[in-house]
């Protein structure tokens, strides 16, 4: 184990020289810390924590105080040892975890049969995990997944504490294949910031229910840094004020993620691969704890399908067409800016001396990084709106694409007429990324590593793509280009107080929020029949002119005598 760590450390240090300050990003999971050196807060990544101690075990109603357990009152040399201690009592926990996509990073969509999950999907953030596991898998709930030889059945490889510890000191550092650091280390390299090795016995003794900070240690940092990916999930949710999230406000309802994502046997419900777009269960609130196949994390599972009071009955008539989120999350990224675009095609620019470059935008956010290319950021983003029925189709590594068009990494299916779709708010993330210009498929770049082929050490796409595709066991013609891509994310978190919901006229007006939503007639939007309008007004006007002339004629006739 130790030797593994040493390797990991030396990897990091070496990689660092070239790689410069930034740490970076992983494709999907988001270890993310450092990606932007600029963003001082980011390094918090897995550790976000320190600043935000978790609710506190002391106030817990639990019948067990883990600090009193003999199994945990010892010095742990490595994190897997902690897991072994956990499993002495929680005998089934690892088996349960190993069935989840948090562990397998794999999800077969039951409808489309597409093989998804972080292991397979190529996105337009950090692109792909394959060949970069050491880095990306800082957000895997396991230890040691650095290549295809990882043992998915070894129970001690399950990371219990990242989801259950409450000290806020435990942090999985990118580059260590999912391990925490066991001795103090500088991270990101050359940043001057020291990540302390956690006291594993304190961490083990602090375990309890999973808090916002636990989930957030990965999910807040998706896409390679705080707030990068989702726009509605970032570190501002660790302890959100009321305006940002009416359910999670600490002084208010103080929901944890699990209040909605009501987990059983470690299976967390709620999915972006196969979301519940329209929860039409009429029997209003789903009974908590009742065994059925319904998704407990929808708004409707608590609020029902007619949530508005009688005097707002008209709003209840909207619930079969409009997702709750459309009105109740009027803007996303209201806590901090989220990344909106990422152009890999400009990555690799160096100074005349061959040094990588970083640039900041007016707000002090990363605007360019030689390792990754150009970015833009935005806060308080007005979502785009689409019909969505829950079916998502992905452009996978082997999917043929048309490079003359914008490639949809994932496309949301839905229409006004299929009876299953609601109008949803989405974040659309746009970018450019490498593709095989001969076979017209997306490419897996090898980005992280101290070897000569990783993009971050030599800024050479040819070598990086060749190594990445080799690791992915996939053919590569050797010719690449950059293709425009788009990825959609449903907006569903950061529900605003009800007073901030959209008002009627924000959609029922010309150029309103839903101006691009087709297939439905909306009063006030100008969907009117142009001929009828033109004809109606014309005849009305002619009638008016007619009677006025008639009247004038009468007056004239009268005068004449």
């Amino acid at each position: 184990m130790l030797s593994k760590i040493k390797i990991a450390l030396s990897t990091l240090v070496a990689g660092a020289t070239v790689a410069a300050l930034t740490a970076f990003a992983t494709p999907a999971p988001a270890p993310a810390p450092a990606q932007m050196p600029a963003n001082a807060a980011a390094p918090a990544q897995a550790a976000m924590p320190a600043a935000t101690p978790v609710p506190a075990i002391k106030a817990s109603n639990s019948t067990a105080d883990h600090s009193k357990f003999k199994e945990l009152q010892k010095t742990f040399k490595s994190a897997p040892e902690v897991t072994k201690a956990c499993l002495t009592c929680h005998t089934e926990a690892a088996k349960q975890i190993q069935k989840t996509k948090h562990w397998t990073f794999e999800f077969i969509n039951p409808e489309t049969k597409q093989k998804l999950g972080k292991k397979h999907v190529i996105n337009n953030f950090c692109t792909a995990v394959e060949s970069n596991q050491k880095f990306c898998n800082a957000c895997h709930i396991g230890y040691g997944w650095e290549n295809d030889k990882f043992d998915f059945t070894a129970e001690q490889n399950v990371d219990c504490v990242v989801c259950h510890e409450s000290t806020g000191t435990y942090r999985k550092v990118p580059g260590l294949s999912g391990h925490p650091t066991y001795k103090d280390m500088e991270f990101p390299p050359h940043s001057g910031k020291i990540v302390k090795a956690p006291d594993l016995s304190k961490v083990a003794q602090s375990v309890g229910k999973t808090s916002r900070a636990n989930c957030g240690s990965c999910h807040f940092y998706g896409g390679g840094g705080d707030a990068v990916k989702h726009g509605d999930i970032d570190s501002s949710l660790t302890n959100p004020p009321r305006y940002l999230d009416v359910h999670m406000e600490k002084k208010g309802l103080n929901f944890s993620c699990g209040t909605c994502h009501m987990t059983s046997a470690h299976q967390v419900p709620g999915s972006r691969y196969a979301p519940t777009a329209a929860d039409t269960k009429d029997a209003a609130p789903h009974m908590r704890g009742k065994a059925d196949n319904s998704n407990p994390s929808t708004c409707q599972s608590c609020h029902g399908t007619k949530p508005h009071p009688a005097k707002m009955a008209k709003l209840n008539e909207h619930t079969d067409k409009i997702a709750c989120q459309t009105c109740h999350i009027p803007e996303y990224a209201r806590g901090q800016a989220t990344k909106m675009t990422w152009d890999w095609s400009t990555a690799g620019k160096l100074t005349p001396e061959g040094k990588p470059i970083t640039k900041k935008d007016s707000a002090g956010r990363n605007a360019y990084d030689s390792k990754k290319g150009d970015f833009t950021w935005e806060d308080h983003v007005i979502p785009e709106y689409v019909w969505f029925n829950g079916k998502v189709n992905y452009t996978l590594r082997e999917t043929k694409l048309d490079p003359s068009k914008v490639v949809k990494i994932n496309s949301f299916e839905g229409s006004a007429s299929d009876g299953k779709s609601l109008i949803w708010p989405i974040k659309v993330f746009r970018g450019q990324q490498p593709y095989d210009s001969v076979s017209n498929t997306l490419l897996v770049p090898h980005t992280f590593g101290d070897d000569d082929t990783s993009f971050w050490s030599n800024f050479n796409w040819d070598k990086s793509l060749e190594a990445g595709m080799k690791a992915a066991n996939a053919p590569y013609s050797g010719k690449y280009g950059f293709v425009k891509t788009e990825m959609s994310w449903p907006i569903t978190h950061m529900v605003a107080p009800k007073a901030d919901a959209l008002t009627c006229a924000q959609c029922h007006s010309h150029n309103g929020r839903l101006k691009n939503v087709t297939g439905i007639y909306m009063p006030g939007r100008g969907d009117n029949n142009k001929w009828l309008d033109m004809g109606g007004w014309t005849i009305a006007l002619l009638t008016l002119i007619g009677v006025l002339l008639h009247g004038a004629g009468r007056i004239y006739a009268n005068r004449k005598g």
Partner: protein
Amino acid sequence: MSVEKIYVFKLFERFWHWSQASLIIFMLVTGFEVHGSYHLFGFAKAVGYHTIAAWTLIGLWIFAIFWHFTTGEWKQYIPTLEKVEAMIKYYALGMFTHAPHPFRATQLKKHNPLQRLAYLGVMLFIGPLLWFSGWFYLFYSEWNAWGVDKYVSLEWVALFHTAGAFFMLIFLIAHLYLTTAGHTPTSHIKAMITGWEEVE
């Protein structure tokens, strides 16, 4: 030519007329705002006002229908083609040459033949058009429960409702003008206020 006065419009009738007139004008104003033609009250308020006015008008019509049948006044709207030609001639020419009005109102025949046709048209065509389409509009979310969602689309409902509104607007313009076409320019209007019409 002697001027005499006859009592043509009873109290309820006058109340019905004026309250209906103000409701219809108000519904035109709010309706075309909902339609998106201009901004006045704001969409949300326009919808709210329009809906309240619709229910009020429905209530008023229930009373009016009841009144017309109990009093037998509905007969006033039985269409007749007699003298229609004369009326048209009068409006087109006679009015400019001080020809006598071809129709003399009585308590039993208080509307001239063109009025009869026009009002019957309003009540049998424009009214039901607005009513039916408006009803579907109002109960949009019940279509599913009614089982009509496959046959009706909001686009068409709105189209018919808007068409009805245009007919009503055109009727209103013509009607407003023709109120001045009585024995004197104000005699029709006075009649609708006081009940007493001056006739020649």
